[in-house]
């Protein structure tokens, strides 16, 4: 039977997905040491944050420097709702994400009127304000010392099944994994639609987009709001995984790191954010890199990526695949 190359590549892709999924599902059995499973959980949360930034920076091309703020807003909101108001985590999580999205929407309206580097500076200003508020609203946030002993999500009781508790690293891992898969699915559906094509048109040529009936402001604002929503989810997960939050969770470093991971992995690609995050969080950890050298390594990697692989790791892999594909088909 002769298969078209398109079908073949689809089968290969499908096989890869199944393989990777099976591998990912077995991770809690393979890695049992608490420290490593904690690290994996943390890089999973970073992946969620970077995937959410990808919707803004990757698809609509807006360099947001306040993605960390939404991470922080999500972390603080869900923690405060659980610890001070006594809410169930499963109610606090959506409320935190929606609040984060709403703040994103409100900030987006003025900030998205500016373009390019002006937008970056506007969002940076907002990011600094959020950290200052968290630092100084001591009666609510506890100020610079932050909030301690944040409990894990309360357990879910499913009918006919046993109770799912979130104390174990394995259940926490699966919760994060499911969220990543959902975000991937979400992004894929979104990009392959009228909305996604409008996002890309805004990134590629806003003026041409307008001339064919696309409202750039509307789609930039939509992407920014959705991005803030999932950044809020990531922040909320972070709070119970680490158990401690301080105003540093909303700092500019968080925003910068998310941008670095995304650029190294590949802006505007589906798998790039995951590759970039894994490379830059897990690898230095397993290689026992001294934390002080971390930023140096990031800097060097960022530099090398921008110079040699402007489309990131995913772009590099793609062009290699094209070259090999040509070699094998004898072109």
């Amino acid at each position, binding site marked *: 039977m002769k298969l078209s190359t398109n079908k073949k590549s689809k089968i290969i892709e499908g096989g890869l997905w199944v393989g990777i999924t099976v591998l990912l599902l077995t991770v809690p059995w393979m890695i049992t040491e608490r420290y490593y499973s904690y690290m994996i959980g943390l890089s999973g949360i970073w992946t969620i944050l970077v995937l959410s930034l990808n919707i803004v920076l990757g698809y609509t091309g807006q360099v947001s420097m306040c993605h960390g703020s939404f991470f922080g807003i999500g972390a603080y909101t869900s923690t405060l709702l659980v610890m001070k108001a006594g809410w169930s985590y499963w109610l606090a999580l959506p409320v935190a994400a929606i609040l984060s999205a709403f703040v994103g929407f409100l900030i987006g309206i003025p900030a998205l009127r500016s373009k390019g580097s002006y937008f970056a500076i506007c969002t940076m200003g907002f990011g600094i304000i959020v950290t200052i508020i968290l630092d100084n609203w001591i009666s609510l946030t506890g100020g610079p010392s932050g909030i301690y002993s944040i409990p894990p999500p309360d357990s879910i009781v499913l009918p006919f099944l046993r109770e799912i508790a979130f104390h174990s690293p394995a259940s926490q891992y699966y919760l994060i994994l499911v969220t990543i898969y959902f975000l991937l699915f979400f992004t894929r559906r979104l990009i392959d639609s009228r909305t996604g094509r409008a996002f*890309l048109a805004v990134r590629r040529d806003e003026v041409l987009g307008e001339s*064919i009936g696309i*409202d750039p402001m509307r789609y930039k604002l939509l992407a920014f709001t959705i991005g803030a929503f999932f950044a809020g989810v990531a922040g909320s997960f972070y709070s119970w995984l680490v158990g401690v939050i301080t105003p540093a969770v909303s700092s500019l470093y968080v925003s910068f790191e998310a941008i670095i991971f995304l650029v190294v992995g590949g802006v505007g690609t589906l798998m790039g954010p995951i590759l970039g995050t894994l490379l830059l969080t897990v690898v230095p950890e397993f290689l026992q890199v001294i934390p002080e050298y971390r930023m140096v390594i990031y800097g060097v990697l960022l530099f090398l990526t921008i110079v040699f692989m402007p489309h990131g790791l995913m772009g590099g892999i793609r062009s290699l695949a094209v070259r090999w594909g040509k070699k094998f088909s004898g072109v």
Partner: protein
Amino acid sequence: MKLALLRVEGLTKHFHGLAAVQEVDFSIHSGEMVGLIGPNGAGKTTVFNLIVGFFRPTRGKIVFRDEEITGLFPHKVARKGIARTFQDTRVFEEETLWQSLRTGCHGWLNSGWIQALLKTSSFVKGEGASRQKTAEILDFIGLLPLKEERAKNISQYARKKLAIALALATEPQVLLLDEPFSGLNPQEAEEIMSLIHKIWERRVTIFLIEHNMKMVKNLCERIIVLNFGRKIAEGSFHDISREPHVIEAYLGGEGVF
């Protein structure tokens, strides 16, 4: 008397006190093919930019299908049924021809992102319609074999066609073409001319800016001449080419005195 599809009244645009367009009036009727000519810097492209909303007029109004569209955002004007191409043949460089035209279907599709996530039947139907439209336009314009190529990799001639195809994907009633023949060899220009004629036969009203008088003469039944931002003549090619103002403008009038 035919009803005006697009009407411009007293259109004026000042840039930092300098008048680029002054008190221009004209109307374009449904099913016409009208040319807009004039020496460099006469304000032709400014008139286009005013009509589609890229610039806000200093004075005057623009009426499309009995509805005033003066000062509307460009995406709103586009969705009312006015499409344009750009002088510098703007296309989405990184997109394939297929993707570009799918993007061009934006205005007449109406599914939102939640429908896309849930893959509702109206979303699936809309996607099907846009695929069909894309294939139809690519075939009509003669670019179907290049559909998987990225716009940055195709020839200048194919880019010109792509820019027109992108405008057509919005299902316009009026198509504004800004120098559709510039940068083409005579044979390619002939091809584009017959393409424009074919589009016009499909009942799309055409308004074009052009320097190539031969093309204007062959295509346009009516011609509007601009000079220094003012309308100096209007009529058939035969009439305007005998107008002393027009000859003067093209020969560089001041020198005559």
